[in-house]
């Protein structure tokens, strides 16, 4: 935590310095024409409202349609650079104030009312709760730092973009009247503005991530650069994609505002609200769908009582490993579903084979070995899960090409997600006390204790309970085994992440 705060401070200091330089250049080089401040007030209100409306959306991974930058781009073209910077900083302060106040008001008065009241009071409470949700009781110094970071980013985004707009001959529409060439004086410089500003945004994002959330085990400049590369590839680009879509709206917003004033806002806000509605809807429906399918498919695998705990633990562990390895948000989201479904191909294998205490015959082995391919076949027919088919197919494939299914090793590239599931699966199988996780039933008289006890001898008929297949390994033994298998059975990268994770956060056996 301390480390994170320190990284945050360094990054904020750096961006603030850049922002100050940019502001100075703008102040000296770009004259403010006319009196844009009245219009700037209107933009502050618009931007604050838009930021508060977007509160919900930013929670969702993978989809980001933050309206801040596009509205500031429009403000830059309409008002001028310095007024746009003022608009950005002022509305950041205003929306943060609203969030902070909502958080404390909600905490003090609304927590109980929220669920009790059905009418307008309950609704207000819920809205306050939503607005305050991103605030999280920050201590004052962290809140100040957060504000500084945010404001500096706004300036470092808009400033360079605005300067490029100005130097390319873009006109500030509020003073341009009707005598401007729409393409050369507005649209072309605007495209340059979006490009520069998006570039700056990605850079800030990368710097912030590298400072706050470095890759474990990497240090120094190389580590920072590595982290920045990852951040840019995996998270910043989707954000920017969303912004570029919204920049079309911003272009029209600027034009409409210059022509018909505040009415332009209303026209431009409609599609933004509709898009927001679409994304919320989409994310909610998709999550409900994934949840339904995962629950059904998990339940289907309960033919064998020990699987219940095993599947959950593999899912949880795989997701943690994916986070540890900083995989893309999409992979992390699907990791737990994949963990729950990885053995679904076993559905057709009979319990007699799965439970057989003695050595399996070749035929029985062949049946078991088919399960990754069968599972992949089932999953390939499930909508929205096409991405995890190969994860399931190769979760018994070894890093060195061994294991099953047998495929041409030159063509088979095991996805890292499959290696993660393989490691989590093997670790859990090693440490799992299978017999202990079965419901205890006496083999000879069928007696089942009410209290969930697992005695060695049946209290009713006195029969010995059959022995375990084998003793479960301790944590240290299991870790040793993973370490030995790294490079042959297991992917060394995954094992390394696993060890780092266990050392840092510990691990729960047999949840």
């Amino acid at each position, binding site marked *: 935590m301390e480390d994170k705060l320190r990284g945050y401070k360094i990054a904020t200091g750096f961006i603030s310095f850049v922002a100050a330089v940019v502001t100075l250049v703008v102040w000296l080089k770009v004259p403010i024409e006319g009196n844009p401040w009245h*219009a700037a007030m209107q933009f502050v209100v618009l931007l604050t409202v838009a930021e508060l409306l977007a509160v919900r959306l930013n929670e969702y991974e993978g989809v980001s349609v933050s309206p801040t930058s596009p509205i500031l781009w429009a403000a830059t073209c309409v008002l001028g650079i310095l007024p746009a910077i003022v608009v950005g900083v002022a509305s950041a302060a205003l929306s943060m104030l609203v969030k902070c106040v909502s958080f404390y008001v909600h905490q003090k008065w609304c927590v109980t009312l929220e669920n009790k009241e059905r009418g307008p009071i309950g609704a207000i409470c819920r809205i306050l709760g939503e607005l305050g949700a991103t605030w999280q009781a920050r201590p004052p110094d962290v809140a100040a730092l957060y504000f500084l970071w945010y404001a500096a980013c706004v300036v470092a985004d808009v400033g360079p973009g605005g300067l490029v707009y100005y130097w390319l001959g873009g006109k500030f529409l*509020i003073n341009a009247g*009707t005598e401007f060439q*729409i393409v050369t004086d507005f649209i072309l410089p605007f495209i340059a503005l979006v490009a520069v500003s998006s570039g700056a945004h990605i850079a800030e994002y990368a710097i912030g991530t590298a400072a706050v959330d470095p890759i474990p085990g990497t240090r120094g400049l190389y580590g920072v650069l590595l982290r920045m590369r990852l951040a840019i590839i995996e998270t910043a680009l989707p954000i920017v994609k969303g912004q570029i879509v919204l920049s079309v*709206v911003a272009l*029209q917003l600027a*034009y*409409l505002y*210059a*022509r*018909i*004033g505040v*009415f332009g806002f209303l*026209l*431009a806000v*409609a*599609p933004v*609200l*509709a*898009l927001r*509605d*679409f994304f919320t*809807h*989409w994310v909610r*429906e*998709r999550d*409900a*769908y994934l*949840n*339904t*399918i995962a*629950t*059904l*498919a998990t*339940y*289907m*695998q*309960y*033919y064998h009582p020990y699987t219940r705990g095993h599947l959950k633990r593999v899912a949880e562990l795989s997701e943690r490993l994916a986070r540890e390895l900083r995989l893309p948000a999409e992979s992390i989201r699907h990791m737990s579903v994949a963990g729950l479904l990885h053995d*679904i191909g076993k*559905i*057709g294998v*009979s*319990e*007699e084979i799965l439970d057989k205490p003695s050595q399996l015959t070749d035929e029985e082995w062949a049946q078991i070995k088919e399960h990754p391919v069968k599972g992949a076949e*089932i999953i390939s*027919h*499930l*909508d*929205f899960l096409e991405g995890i088919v190969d994860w399931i197919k190769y979760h018994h494939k070894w890093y060195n090409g061994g294991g099953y299914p047998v495929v041409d090793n030159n063509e088979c590239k095991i996805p890292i997600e499959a290696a993660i599931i393989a490691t989590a699966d093997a670790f859990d199988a090693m440490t799992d006390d299978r017999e202990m996780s079965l419901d205890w039933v006496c083999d000879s008289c069928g007696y089942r204790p009410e209290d969930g006890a697992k005695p060695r001898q049946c209290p009713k008929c006195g029969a010995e309970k059959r022995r375990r297949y084998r003793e479960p390994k301790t944590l240290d033994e299991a870790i040793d085994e993973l370490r030995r298998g790294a490079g042959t059975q297991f992917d060394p990268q995954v094992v390394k992440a696993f060890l780092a994770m266990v050392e840092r956060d510990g691990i729960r056996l047999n949840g």
Partner: protein
Amino acid sequence: MDSYNFTPGVIITGVLLLSLAIFSVYISRVYLPARIKAAYVKSITVLAAAVETRDAGTLGHAQRVAQLTMEMARRLGLDGDDLDRIQYAALIMDMGKARVPQAILNKKDPLTPEEWEILKSHPRLSAEMVSAVPFLADIADIVLHHHELWDGSGYPDGLAGEEIPLESRILCVAADYDAMVSERPYHPRPLTPEEAAEQIRLGAGSKYDPRVVEAFFDVIGSKQTTEQKALAA
């Protein structure tokens, strides 16, 4: 800025923005639900088929039953959401068999009373499964009672007559018909469609709801006429 300039540019931009808004509303309210529903039907069909691989001879059972059930339900005046619910119920009703040992599912000899008890627990297991999913919780009752018979001799609760949900009564007829015409370990040879239909007719009023049986014959009859027409043509 002093006057509002509704130039053609402004009007075109405004129309563009509004149509973007209307388009996204259309996508999220009309296209998306249809897409998601198709995904549900497809995925649940696949999962049901996966469970059927445990049980020799039932492959495709759920899908065929779902089709027959939907047609019967339509004739009995169900529509919209009710029709969706009965489709999901038909696909899911036997998924509880995932927890019945394969040795029992595939046994050729008559089952012992204990084994019968285990097999008869499958509607309860299926119902338990769907109640774990918020999206499907409201079909739990239909699934639970799909082996209840009109005269009260079915399982698990021995409900009779109108106590059994209508959807379950429909499912019961469709599932029994499909079981009779397909190969199963417990009967020596499948019945022909005519023989099976005769069995259903005999069961009307005792095992099956007469009204549902009527709808069943409507469906079967119209199928035969279409087939005859196809042959004639």
